[in-house]
């Protein structure tokens, strides 16, 4: 079984600060990590490797510094690592990103493609499903659990209020929730060996995609404005008896269509 895992390097914080002038993320001084959903995706792949001797290839698109997340993937047990890096990839929105990734994936053998559900810096949840569309593959998003049997995956997909059990034939793409598992720690030996392993660095020339679909040129989404949310008004304060307070709360909730 050949598995491809797409991972993204993200800043390790839930309180991402924005540069008020450019509207872009301030990454200085913020440690970078493998996006949590993607790390769960990698763990899912490594678990299949343990059970079925699958070969796990990890891909990331990003600047040269993103190499470190691929080393981390090696230290956890991945077999092959590819870094997509090229000036022509820069400024990509989700569509251009998924075009680049699927362009790379087209050149590889795969039975299963795994992505995280969404990245903590962008929260779009679009790249995984878009890759499936580009490659014309069946996809299951929001994966909570997976079992494999005779080229068929049985997948537990999380919905807002329950789960769906789906069967899907390989090849297919899944997007994984970080609640699906607890990723293993890197082993010391894995860390020692990770730096002796090759990271394949691929530019546009190595992948199968029309260049027009990449980077800023291939990105229909334009960020109009990015800002840090200001503090809201202090709200209304009522100093009334309990009975009256209950009435006010109910009417406010109705006003907002909450009840």
């Amino acid at each position: 079984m050949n598995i491809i895992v797409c991972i993204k390097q993200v800043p390790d914080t839930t309180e991402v600060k924005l540069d008020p002038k450019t509207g872009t993320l301030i990454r200085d001084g913020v440690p970078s990590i493998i996006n949590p959903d993607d790390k769960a995706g990698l763990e899912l792949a490594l678990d299949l490797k343990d059970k079925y001797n699958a070969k796990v290839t990890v891909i990331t698109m990003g600047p040269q510094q993103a190499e470190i997340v691929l080393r981390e993937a090696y230290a956890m047990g991945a077999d092959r690592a590819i870094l997509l890096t090229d000036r022509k990839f820069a400024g990509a929105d989700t569509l251009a990103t998924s075009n680049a990734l699927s362009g790379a994936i087209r050149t590889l053998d795969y039975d299963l493609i795994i992505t995280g559900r969404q990245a903590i810096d962008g929260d779009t949840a679009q790249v995984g499903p878009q890759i499936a569309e580009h490659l014309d593959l069946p996809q299951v998003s929001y994966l909570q659990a997976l079992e494999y049997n005779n080229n068929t995956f049985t997948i537990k997909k999380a919905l807002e209020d329950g789960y769906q059990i789906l069967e899907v034939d390989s090849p297919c793409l899944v997007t994984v929730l970080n609640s699906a598992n607890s990723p293993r720690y890197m082993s010391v030996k894995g860390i020692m060996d990770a730096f002796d392993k090759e990271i394949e660095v691929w530019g546009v020339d190595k992948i199968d995609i029309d260049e027009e679909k990449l980077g800023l040129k291939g990105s229909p989404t334009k960020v109009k404005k990015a800002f840090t949310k200001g503090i809201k008004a202090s709200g209304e304060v009522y100093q009334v008896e309990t009975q009256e307070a209950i009435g006010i709360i109910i009417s406010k909730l109705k006003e907002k269509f909450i009840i």
Partner: protein
Amino acid sequence: MNFNITEQEKLFLQMIREFAEKEVKPLAAEVDEQERFPVETVEKMGKIGLMGIPVPSKYGGQGGTNQIYSMAVEELSRYCATTGVIVSAHTSLCVAPILENGTEEQKLKYLPKLCSGEWIGAFGLTEPNAGTDAAMQQTIAIEKEDKWILNGSKIFITNAGYADVYIIIAMTDKSQGTKGISAFIVEKNTPGFSIGKKEKKLGIRGSSTCELIFENCEIPKENLLGKVGKGFGIAMKTLDGGRIGIAAQALGIAQGAMDETIKYTKERKQFGKKISQFQNTQFQMADMETKIQASRLLVRSAAFKKDMSLPYSTDAAMAKLMAAETAMDVTTKAVQFHGGYGYTREYPIERMMRDAKITEIYEGTSEVQRMVIAANILK
């Protein structure tokens, strides 16, 4: 020596910090309170390779450096000095002497299981009448046909009771003095070998510290470690390496107490101000931090020299002396900053102070470290 940590070390620190915070920190108070050896943590550590860091992979080790090993002990001890000393005694006092003095057969027999954590290691040198004066060994080993027969006892043995493999130092020829001392590998469950009294201690209370008893304990001839009469040298060299581990443990304890102090002094208010805003606090904390950083550089430098196969005995002694005295000083001050709260078991700081004390005593007291350092400068 490069003062920047490598990318590899960075990745290792990322892993060990996450491991220590998620797996070690939550158990630290319980392990101390219940004087419980954290077997589950040892199993987890074995799985990710923490029980055999500076050992080549052909013996089942991780192929890591002593530098990385010292970082591991430091980071574990930052939350739990018990966990730190389990790894340190296992690695420096059992795995290392087998690696450095063992025959190929011994290495292949013992190291893979020790490095995977399936087996735990321990080291027996100290006796009731042979503490700092380690040459006064009364445990005796007599050669009889194809066996060695051990009689005597050892005390204060770290990991005892849980260990599967013990490096035992014994007298093989009393007339030869220190040249009549030899080292042996003794497996648990060897007839005639039993575990005696378990010590109740001030600190590192989760660490198992017991007496070892040998009554006509027969071990196979091939379990002699190194040559006959070379045991004292093996023991002293083993302790040199062990000092890097204990220095790292002391460093971790000091850093852990510092972390707590920074957090607490920035929260605690008295006289309308955070106590971190008082100059007395600031000056003392500046001194604490400086000593910690100085200790860290000594630990790293000793580990670096060991990695480079350079003489490191004095460096290890200096690292241990400095780090142990820093740990004691920093934890005592940290309790003071925490006031009454720091004296209670609600905060981890009193435990850190209790744990720190042993680092000035075991694997060579601070006085022994000064002897080693002085002997080197006055030779």
